[in-house]
């Protein structure tokens, strides 16, 4: 995916300036190429998710975009500023929220906000109004003097977001922002993120979880330093898995797995509680054949239905393919 994406236009038909641009970005550490010629353009207000295995190069790309690492080759721009030439300006234009929220538990809500306001050099004149906004956004009105350590996860998370945007950065980086918070807080959080994106903030999310990936406008799949795909979750799920994905619901999953393993036309198998997910090559086997095989071996089957692959399914498949083509490995193992 080194091709530069076509320029996009916004609703009014005007050309929009991309806020994040990477052109042939490379980062090497000694002999190791952590990021290998990655190019993309992200428009204003887009929520982009970076997905990839540990060590795939996600954080290296993000660190370069934050002006914390200098690219070995290629260029990257944040709001038009070259990250290699002017990392200081880049850092003033971004907000960052880590997984651990990096709040001070022994300080109050208000003290944390003032502290981060100072770090981000928010002008004194506007600070009270920005703090007010953050408190309300986090749903912490009336709890300004509570110690942060006494707050539940969802509140901490929204407060951390409030702190990260005190200086009104045009670009916001979030690292697994909703891991471990309860579902209701997670949805509230994403509502806030979508509201920010609606106001034109460009948001970069780095995550391992499709719970989070599903909320993004665009997903960048990174593997071994390369960009495997850059498209919407909906488009990604329509990608060819290389076969048909079936959900086979049956009582005895263990026996079903044994029987199915190694059958011709079976490309992959995974157990899911009461069902086996089987990826089949429809030219070589059919749901009817699998049904007959299992029933014949006294494994009663409740349903066999084709299912839409999850982002995880697509991701694992694409990473597997990339690995095979790079290493010339023989076919995927089922089991």
């Amino acid at each position, binding site marked *: 995916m080194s091709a530069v994406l076509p320029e996009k236009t916004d*609703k009014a038909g005007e050309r929009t300036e991309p806020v994040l641009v990477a052109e042939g970005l490379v980062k090497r550490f000694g002999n190791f190429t952590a990021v290998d010629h990655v190019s993309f353009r992200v428009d204003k207000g887009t*929520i982009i998710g970076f*997905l*990839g*295995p*540990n*060590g*795939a190069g996600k954080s290296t790309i993000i660190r370069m975009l934050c002006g914390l690492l200098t690219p070995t080759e290629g260029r990257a721009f944040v709001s038009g500023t070259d990250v290699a030439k002017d990392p200081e300006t880049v850092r003033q234009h971004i907000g960052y929220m880590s997984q651990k929220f990096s709040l001070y538990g022994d300080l109050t809500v208000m003290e944390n906000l003032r502290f981060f306001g100072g770090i981000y050099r928010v002008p004194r004149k506007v600070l009270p109004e920005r703090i007010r906004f953050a408190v309300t956004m986090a749903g912490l009105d009336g709890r300004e003097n509570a110690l942060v350590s006494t707050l*539940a*996860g969802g509140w901490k998370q929204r407060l951390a977001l409030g702190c990260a945007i005190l200086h009104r950065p045009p670009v916001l980086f979030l690292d697994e922002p909703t*891991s*471990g*918070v*309860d*579902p*209701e*807080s*997670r*949805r509230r959080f*994403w*509502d806030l993120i*979508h509201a920010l994106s*609606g106001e034109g903030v460009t948001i970069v999310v780095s995550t*391992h*979880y*499709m*719970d989070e990936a*599903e*909320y*993004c*406008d*665009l997903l960048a799949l990174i593997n071994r330093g390369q960009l495997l795909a850059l498209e*919407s*979750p*909906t488009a990604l799920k329509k990608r060819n898995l290389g076969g048909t994905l079936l959900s086979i*619901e049956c009582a005895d*999953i*263990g026996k079903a*797995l*044994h029987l199915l393993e190694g059958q011709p036309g079976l490309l992959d198998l*995974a*157990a*899911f*509680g*009461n*069902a086996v997910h089987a990826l089949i090559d429809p030219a070589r086997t059919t749901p009817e054949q699998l049904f007959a095989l299992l029933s014949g071996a006294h494994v009663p089957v409740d349903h066999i239905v084709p299912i839409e692959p*999850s982002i*995880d399914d697509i*991701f*694992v498949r694409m*990473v*597997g393919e990339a690995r095979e083509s790079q290493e010339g490995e023989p076919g995927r193992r089922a*089991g």
Partner: protein
Amino acid sequence: MSPALPPRIEARKLVKRFPGVFAVNEMSFSVGEGEIFGLVGPDGAGKTTVIRLLAGVMPPDSGSATIDGVDVVADPERAKQFLSYMPQRFGLYEDLTVDENIRFYADIFEVAPSIRDQRIGPLLSSFGMAPFQRRLAGQLSGGMKQKLGLICALIHTPRVLLLDEPTTGVDPVSRRDFWKILYSLREQGVTILISTAYLEEAERCTRLALVHQGVMAYCDTPARLRAMMPGKLLNVVSSQARDVQKAIASLPGISGALLMGDRVHVAVDDDGRRIPEIVRVLEEAHIPFEPPVPAEPTMEDLFLALLRERRTSP
């Protein structure tokens, strides 16, 4: 889940209080052979505390727990022969090699040297760790560290395996490998109790419990829990998803309209009735959209709907 077999894990009215909170409030459940039982819930729901009570590393304030019929409070030493507990931060020695770590745990679990060698080889190869035997544990990736932790926990062939959020921070490829291993252990007769904060992962369990504020809110197979989902879910894909959300969020019969990238995830009471209404409203507002399609509820949809119901019913 055969009721004829005695439960491998049994919790009876377990209670654990910490200053000011009920971390675990009267939890009872039993897990039989062949189950992968999931404790699902957000951070702070009480998952870790339940696992610690079951592992016998923390005594309950009241109630009891048994592993293979042995009371973990009354006879912790005997119970520990049957169980392995992998805490969130498993104690690997980063300056020891993979092999040395495994041998260290074999010593702790008092595995006889002759049996030890027979077990280490197959464990290493079935986890795909054989090539890394001499690598320092500190130099392994997150996924490989989790696998090494599991090998160490399995060196004494336990009947019950307690895993506290083993896949947190592990990428999807390694997670899939990890689950394959869990299913093969289940085949070998190991009963597994696993906690996770990731609802999507819950689908992998044969039975799961939704844990909320120290209470087990629901406990059943994923399929039966799914069948409890009230109403229907729809996806509306649009290049102007934000406008779609605004236009339909307050229509009657719509209990949720969640913006997700290029689509809106809509919870409705009756799809047959609401789809035409949604279509009409969007057409009148001249918002481009693709026809609404039914969506499978995610575990998150389910969790939210069930908790909402619980709150409104007495």
